């Protein structure tokens, strides 16, 4: 436990002081703010449902899809992957891994500590982004969020962190399997593009003719899963229908929305856990070899 906390604290400090984090943070903030600003331009003309004005800040963008959510869907993976792709192999290359593992700590403390530090970093990043954007929204539209809206935003934040954790786990997985940092980075990016592409097909099903089977396959993509979850949480009038989203005139209570989200959310959590479990087993069985 003490080993885990030590690794966790060091990794967290590393993340927050690294250039890669500062750059990521700057990009996320800049794009997030721009996206929400663009979205907010439409909110005055487009408020369809006066019950959830504040949430529409995130989900409305005229006739187009909400820019802010799209940005989160496509950008959080990059954040996760960038925080994780060199977690283990860079330590192996620099020779710190054998020194680290010769200390009296359980081996899983290393991987758990790194994973946890990454998750906390993503959580901090996303929370500050959402809070910042909410603050801007308050100023722009002058309507405070209701308690239900606040809860929905909280649920959205938690889902975002789980989504980020999946990509972080994927990055760490590649960092264990590939001994070169460049390989693991490219593999992570390739997978992100692949899932992103599939997710794109599921977000815009009318652009491509998938058929029922195709749509089902496409929806296992974490990108598509997250998109569904986000929309169901942030758009109270949306409900899940045969893999697609249906906007109904009446809003669902929060509990019902969460119930609709549940299968997608569980799939997302399962993907994350599987990803982390594979890295965990691989790392625990890995031998330290003389080179």
């Amino acid at each position, binding site marked *: 436990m003490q*080993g885990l906390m030590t690794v966790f604290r060091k990794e967290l400090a590393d993340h927050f002081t690294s250039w890669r984090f500062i750059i990521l943070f700057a990009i996320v903030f800049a794009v997030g703010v721009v996206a929400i600003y663009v979205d907010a331009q439409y909110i005055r003309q487009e408020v369809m449902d006066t019950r959830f004005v504040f949430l529409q800040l995130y989900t409305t963008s005229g006739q187009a899809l909400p820019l802010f959510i799209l940005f989160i869907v496509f950008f959080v993976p990059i954040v996760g992957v960038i925080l994780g792709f060199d977690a283990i192999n860079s330590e192996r290359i620099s020779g710190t*891994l054998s020194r680290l593992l*010769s*200390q*009296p*700590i359980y081996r899983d403390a290393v991987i758990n500590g790194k994973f946890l530090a990454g998750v906390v970093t993503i959580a901090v990043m996303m929370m500050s982004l959402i809070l910042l954007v909410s603050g801007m929204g308050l100023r722009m539209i002058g309507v405070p969020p209701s308690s239900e809206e606040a809860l929905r935003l909280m649920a959205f934040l938690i889902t975002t962190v789980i989504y980020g954790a999946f990509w972080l786990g994927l990055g760490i997985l590649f960092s264990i399997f590939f001994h070169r940092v460049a390989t693991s980075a490219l593999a992570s990016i390739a997978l992100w593009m692949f899932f992103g592409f599939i997710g794109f097909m599921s977000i815009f099903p009318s652009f491509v003719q998938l058929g029922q089977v195709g749509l089902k396959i496409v929806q296992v993509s974490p990108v598509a899963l997250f998109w569904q979850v986000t929309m169901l949480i942030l758009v109270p009038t949306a409900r899940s229908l045969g893999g697609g989203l249906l906007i109904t005139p009446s809003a669902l209570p929060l509990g019902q929305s969460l119930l609709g989200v549940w299968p997608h959310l569980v799939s997302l959590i399962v993907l994350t856990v599987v990803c982390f479990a594979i890295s965990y087993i691989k790392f625990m069985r890995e*031998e*330290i070899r*003389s080179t």
Partner: protein
Amino acid sequence: MSELSTQLVVETVDLTKTYDGNKVVDGLNLRVEEGDVFGFLGPNGAGKTTTILMLLGLTEPASGAAYICGYNSTREPLKVKRISGYVPERIGFYEDLTASYNLAYTARLNGLSEELVRRRVGESLDIVGLSEVADQRVETFSRGMKQRLAIADLLIKTPRVAFLDEPTSGIDPEGVNQMLDLIAGIAREQRMTVILSSHQLNHVQRICNRVGILVKGRMVVEGLLDQLGREALGGSQFSIEVQLSEITSGIIERINQVEGVVGVERSGDLLVINCVEDLRPQIARAVVDSGGSLVEMKVQSYALEDIYMRYFKEG
């Protein structure tokens, strides 16, 4: 007395490791007693590092067992890691962090209290002479400095036994001597058992009291350093070349009578005398006593190098 008070710090029992069907370490039985500075010699790829990794519980043996102070390295790795320090051959530090932060991390991983962390970091850096660069990033360090930092990293956890894997590789000759003296000093002052692996015999010879030579995963010879020398050369360690103006059998006979002379050989106008110690004064007197006239006398101490090379060829 010494028999009773010594304890085995490192012990391996038929330790074997196979990589892809090749026996890298083959039935190794190694015993290192408390307070020893053990030189683990062998050519590259002899299995030295693999043995150390197995002793530390970082790699599992194919068969056999390794013990550190009685703890089984495979089954109780945490206990083993608590009392043993390791300096890998490829020393790695977090380059973008300061020297003291790197050491503090090790200290915290060993569960030291924050107060103790600060104190040990200061002390260790002091011992290796890096106090002045404590707050510099490791990336600015030279290789020699990193090597010394690795020694400081070892001292942080005050281990009972230290494994140093090729601690002298890649530094200049002067640095090598400084490093070796540092290690020897620490071993003496902290009463630490040291296992030092190297393929350079003269490095090992400088500070080790016992050596083992590992070739292709097997220990070909092991023992006290001075004992080994005697055995390998048939009891003699010194060879003295004497050039005389004239060689007579009387002179040879007279030299043979000098105490400590093992054998006298004649080669051309030279006499080669093998003896257990430097007997030049006695031999000179013997020559003069028996009426010979001395032209030149050269002593050659057999460095273990010759023995080492011999084992290399055998292996």
